[in-house]
């Protein structure tokens, strides 16, 4: 029952205040980066400090796109963006689908070797990137997957599937088995019962898994830096390093690029998070 609880005004305000402080702490370091993107370099690390941009500028962005007269050569941001989007979205969708299947199997079936398999998936994530990266590179180069989107997608799948499995397993367990029973009585195959009943009810869990998977792939750097090389597959975070040269880091440009990375991620996250809904399973069963 979606009871609205008794809540004193002071409690409400205390919560709002605490939340405000927490969100401020979370936002300020990030906002600082965003602000940097709109500052000329003089203001960035000035002494005495300049807090609010005095001369806000879009030059940092113009530079990225090669729109400044001094720099004819922009970065292939459009390519990076396309690669990032294709890789992240595809790998997220597939990881969610495949991981969800696995999670469902763990949540709803008894079978031989279940524990071992569950542990196996967990252990697959214990391998540190470094132990993986070189052999992976070798295998991938044999398979011709170097610098391809597919190559990256498969890697991100392997990263994202295990936790999708654990997470969805947890959420499917929260859904009373009786609901799928009822659906089967109503004539559903197990498959239909899954899609029509359990899948919608696990929505919150899937949404959070999707957000997590998407952002992991969207922001991943180390492996992408290794496997991708050109505009064929290079992703935004790798592009971020275009702003580092041997001796310099173009922090203003990097911040501008960061803004370009953050905005799509924010938008997608905002869209997906609406599926985080409370109480999806309320009212279904008694007791």
């Amino acid at each position, binding site marked *: 029952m979606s009871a609205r609880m008794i809540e004193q005004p002071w409690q409400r305000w205390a919560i709002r205040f605490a939340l405000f402080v927490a969100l401020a702490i979370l936002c300020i370091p990030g906002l600082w980066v965003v602000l940097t993107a709109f500052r*000329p*370099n*003089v203001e*960035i*690390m*000035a*002494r005495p400090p300049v807090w609010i941009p005095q001369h806000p*500028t879009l*030059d940092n962005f113009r*530079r990225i796109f090669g729109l400044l007269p001094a*720099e*004819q*050569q922009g*970065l292939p941001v459009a390519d990076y963006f396309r690669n990032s989007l294709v890789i992240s979205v595809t790998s997220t969708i597939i990881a969610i689908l495949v991981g969800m299947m696995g999670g469902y199997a763990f949540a709803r079936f008894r079978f031989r070797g279940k524990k071992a398999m569950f542990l196996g998936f967990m252990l697959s994530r214990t391998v540190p990137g470094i132990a993986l990266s*070189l052999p992976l*590179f*070798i295998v991938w*180069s*044999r398979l011709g997957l*170097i*610098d391809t989107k597919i190559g990256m997608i498969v890697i991100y799948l392997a990263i994202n599937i295990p936790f999708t499995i654990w997470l969805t397993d947890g959420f499917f367990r929260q859904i009373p088995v009786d609901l799928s029973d009822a659906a089967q009585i109503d004539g559903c195959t197990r498959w239909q019962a899954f899609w029509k009943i359990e899948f919608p009810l696990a929505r919150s869990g899937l949404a959070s898994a999707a957000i997590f998977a998407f952002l992991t792939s969207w922001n991943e750097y180390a492996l992408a*830096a*290794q496997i991708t*090389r*050109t*505009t064929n597959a*290079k992703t935004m975070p*790798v592009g971020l*390093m*275009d*702003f*580092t*040269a*041997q*001796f*310099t*880091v*173009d*922090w*203003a*440009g990097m911040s501008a690029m960061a803004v370009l990375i953050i905005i799509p991620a924010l938008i997608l996250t905002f869209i997906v998070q609406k599926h985080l809904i409370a109480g999806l399973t309320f009212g279904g069963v008694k007791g």
Partner: protein
Amino acid sequence: QEGYGKFDGYTLKVKLIGGTQYEKLYTRIPEWEKLTGAKVDIVSSKNHFDLDREIKQDIASGSISWCVGSNHTSFAPQYGDLYVDLKPLIPAETLADYVPATLKASEVDGRLVQLPRVTDVSNLYYNKDVYENPDIKAKYKAKFGTDLAPPKTYDEYKQQVIFLANPPNLYGTAFPGKDEGMTGRFMELVRANGGDMFDDKWNPTFNSPAGVAALQWFVDIYKAGAVPAGTVNYTWDDIGQAMAAGTLAIDLDWPGFAAFFNDQASSKIAGKVGFALAPVGSSGKRGGWSGSHSFSVTQACDNKKAAVSFITFMTNYDSEMMEARAGNLPTRTKVFADVEKEFRDKGNTYMAEMFGTWEKSLETARTPPLIPQWIEVSNVLWPQLQAAIVGQKTPKEALDKAASDAHDIMEDAGLLK
């Protein structure tokens, strides 16, 4: 003009250093394509360190399918015989146009494995707001009896930075305190003090008295608070930012910063930057740590002619002028004079002066030891340098430890004679 040949229908695979600073040059690629009829396929474009890692992976996985790679004098020794010796492939008269010392430094074991594109060596930038401030000058004179002018020796350098520091708004200077930057600056000072990193038999010798004195120099200015305490974590960009923010009086730094420091949009000290040659050490010499970005051609390349044509084109007169105009040190002798003249004609005496100053320092510049183990040695050395600088060890202890580790590395590598 050199002839670049005709390679119609050929696709040249290249692996280039990426990043805004370097990619400007690549706008010239279409021109080469037009000249030769070949196509260029950039199979990779990454920053310095990632490119190094990638090339090592390619070696490890045996997948060298490309012809031209960006290279650097510091990295080149590690790649073994990945790259060809260019001497037989490029006419001697063409090579004669390059700065001889730079070209020499591009050789590994006598093989010219790379064609230099831009060179780097450090000299002094100073903040005229400080150095031409009558107040400060007067006080300095009163204290030391000499006029305040950019330092000629490291001792003077030390004395000035300690005197000028007025934290937190102004520090004397800053130095890169980690990674190869730390090692390099140390090496510079060791050499300026008459020492070196290794002897002829590849025994580490940086724990010699010259080495200890060099490290002591860093320790002194650090202890005196002449540098930001965080300098042990700084890399080039931090120092550049600090200088541009006007919080450093003087800075031993790379030529690439010249334009940056003088840019109104990025620097508070624009218009107030002076240049001076790097100071000399106790031996009266400059340490001159230098290195060059370069292009190399792989042994595995199926059309070395085209590859050589490409790298020559990318370092030809026009290309080098382009690099120089952007503020990078060119590798062709003629370009130095021409670009300096060009800037002067345009009224940009600042940049003209920069090229003048830097060209002078190139003569005595030296690269780090060109051995594959250099980075590895550097990696055992800089943490020890840090330990001494932050006062965790004495310079001697620190260097002895590093030397012993380095000794092991050299021994393992079979280099010790």
